[in-house]
């Protein structure tokens, strides 16, 4: 196997059902006034059967420009409600950085929960097929809530609650190269006597 032909084999498992998303929405921290946030990230998604997912997200605030605020790792579970159409994703977020408003100095830690609804607007996945590669386009609506913990030696040591609502788009990529099987290979133990045909109710 040369390097050229090995490349897709190596890359394929890494690229199974992942996507790039961009969302925006209002966020609140403590008693501060609302800030308008914008998030971008990359993460996996469940494609054919419900399962765990993992992703990263970078958060920013629109305030006389885009100001990077935080980075988060997100672990969750994609519950496929309507295959190919609707996915619910509860998850946990852990991150570092700053809340959407400046309420403490330094780099704080974040922990929280989130909930996301994804409606797949466009996909090649709504009929039985083994897709070697296909794009998908989701509309995303999400909400999260969590706690910021200021660093030591900050101006305050009190935790701050932060909540946000997001909506946006997700551009996904999928492949069935390592996805859960949609079919089966029935095993035959003997050729004689002949089993009934599949069309007659038998299995080959």
């Amino acid at each position, binding site marked *: 196997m040369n390097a050229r*032909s090995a490349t897709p084999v190596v890359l394929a498992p890494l690229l199974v059902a992942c996507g790039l998303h961009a969302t925006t929405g209002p966020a609140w921290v403590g008693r501060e006034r609302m800030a308008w946030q914008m998030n971008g990230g990359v993460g996996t998604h469940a494609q054919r059967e419900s399962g765990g997912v993992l992703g990263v997200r970078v958060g920013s605030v629109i305030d006389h420009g885009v100001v990077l605020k935080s980075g988060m790792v997100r672990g969750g579970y994609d519950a496929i409600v309507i295959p190919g159409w609707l996915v619910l994703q509860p998850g946990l977020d852990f991150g570092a950085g700053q809340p959407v408003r400046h309420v403490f100095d330094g780099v704080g830690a974040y922990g929280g929960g989130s909930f996301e609804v994804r409606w797949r607007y466009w996909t*090649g996945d709504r009929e*039985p*097929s083994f897709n*070697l590669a*296909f*794009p998908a386009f989701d509309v995303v609506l999400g909400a999260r809530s969590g706690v910021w913990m200021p660093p030591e030696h900050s101006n305050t040591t009190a935790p701050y609650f932060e909540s946000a609502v997001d909506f946006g788009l997700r551009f996904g990529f999928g492949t069935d190269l390592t996805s859960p099987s*949609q079919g089966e*290979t029935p095993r035959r133990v003997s050729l004689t006597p002949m089993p009934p045909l599949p069309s007659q109710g038998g299995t080959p």
Partner: protein
Amino acid sequence: MSRLVANLLALFTALFALGCGNLPAKTPLQPPPYTGESPGSFVVGTALVDITPPLHLSLYGHGPESRVATGVRLRLHCQVFVVSTGAEPIALVPCDLQSSSAALQRGVAALLADYGIPITADRIFIMATHTHAGPAHYFEARFYSGPFSSSIPSYDEEVKNFLARAVAEGIVRAFAAQAPACVGWSEVNVPDLSFNRSYVPFLANEGRDGSVTPVDQRLFVLRFDPRQPGARTCVADGPPLGVLAVYGMHPTGISHANELYHGDIFGFATRVATACLRNAKRDPINPSSALAVHDEDCDAEVGALDAGVLVGLANGVEGDVSPNVRFQSVPNARALGRRLGVEIAHAAAAIPTLDATGPFEHAYWELWFPSGRYDEAGHQLCPFGDLGVAAGGGAPDGPTRLRVLDAANPGYRLKLPAGMTEAERPCQGPKLGLRIGTKPDPLAFPQFGAISLIQVGPARFATAPAELTTMTGHRIRQVLEKRLGAERIAVVGLTNHYFQYVTTKEEYEYQYYEGASNLYGPHTAEFLAHHFDCLADWLNRKRGVAENVAAGATPAPRCSQPLAVNRLYRFEPHPKPQSSRMPEEEDGLSPLLLKAPGVSLSFEDGAPGWEMEFPRLPLTFSADHAKYRVVVLSWPSRAVVDDDDGSSLETSEASGGATWRVRWAPDLEARRAALCDQPFVLAVRGRFEFESRPFKLDCSFGKAKKQ
């Protein structure tokens, strides 16, 4: 509303009229006149054309496992047989290609029209041998030029034009060479050359009884002999003019790791049959006997293939038929090819009588596959062609790396969705479509393909644009024998267009490689059989042999749909423009200055070969025999003892393309006495001429091995 309907009808009629029409020939030529010929006498012309392309194109047949061509093992050929009885000639053209394409067939027809040759596309029959070591890039269907088609996915107009020019040139030459001839026809059984590689699905066929063997072992041979103008009989006392044979088998005797152009088992077989028949003679003591073929004659050096008897070999019912080789290798392919070639020669030589006159007709029908009706009740094929994921793993002869996935292995079936019964499955049944993108692409696979019935004297051919499994071929033949009241019909696959495999419905259910490669759903075999039945019925009515014609009644057509026989769909290839892979001609080449290269012995696939290396030559040279030719000369007499028209000389790149290597690997099993311990030189002729140092063919390794 009625006005709207009328307008729609008018629009539909106009579109139909635009879509179907005969291609006009410009300034048609006429076959050469022969005085004293009886009406209906056969005239036949033959020609051999070399279609070996330049190097560095992708090979085609093993999907993404196909390699890029870096050399030539057997030059690729088309054998052209132009046959007529004075008008409406047809061209039967077996070619060393994996398959044909509409782009190629129409390209040839367009060139013939420009040349003024009155052979339109409906009378051109390009019959691919199905070698998996021919070039890619001439398929207009997107999947056949897409990411999983070959190692260099692309459609290349220049490759298509190269092949079309070569085939058209052959037809022109054969057309001009037409001369009075006789024809003979033979069918023999040739067992043990092949086996059914998808036996489990084959066993599942309904109606299978002892009369249906797992492989179709029939070898059909159409023989043409020269005839004196005006003569009513042939004095067949010498080698025939040409032989067109049909045998069903995947000619995949050499593995997908190969990087050289070659015709595989069929390429070896035609060379051996040619050698056999060139030396065939009647018994001088018993002149009424058939030609005698002696096996030892079959091992003689072939010499110039374009002189003397021409042997073409088309592929028959071969969808699930693999060659019976212990493992894939050049020696094994050569050995099986030799056996097949000898059988062809024996069958051709044994034809007792040849006729100067006889029935001559053809019916060609282009079928539209998407949603095509496969019975009179109006049931339809699937609207889109789709390749099953189980096809992605390749056949046992050429597995791909996708077999690491369970889904890409034979027998992988789509799970039945909850609440659905088998009868309610979608059109493609248990096939799980192998896709790239978001939805089925209607242009991914061909949409129309032609079937035809051809009769040349006693010979009958039924051609199909696909690889037919054994049972599919059997059912088609059953339909035709019943409708035409004739036997000994040669079913030829892979003709003019390529729809991959056609399996029976029972075989399709199992989703082995062939079933997963059956594009338009489980009823494709019924579709073909139904349309063959319609076409045979059309021929019957055209001849007026139906019983009720004698009674003064108009025979009722077998099929309710209109038959656009001998008419053509309007065709425009729709590939995206691609930069061509065809290398440019190199002008102003400096002389090749080199000392006579030495020759060394090496073993490949266990077979010995003597090879020399020299500086690389332009890639286009492999396509031009006038510029590059390899011969083996005896030393010191310099008589030609072998050349690259035969099956023993290979040219390939070496040292990463920096040099070329010529390798001579004669069949020492057959020619040991003539070659061993004799001195030879390898020589290149053409644009540059040079010779190796003399070397002696030391076969002592063989003796040591035997001890």
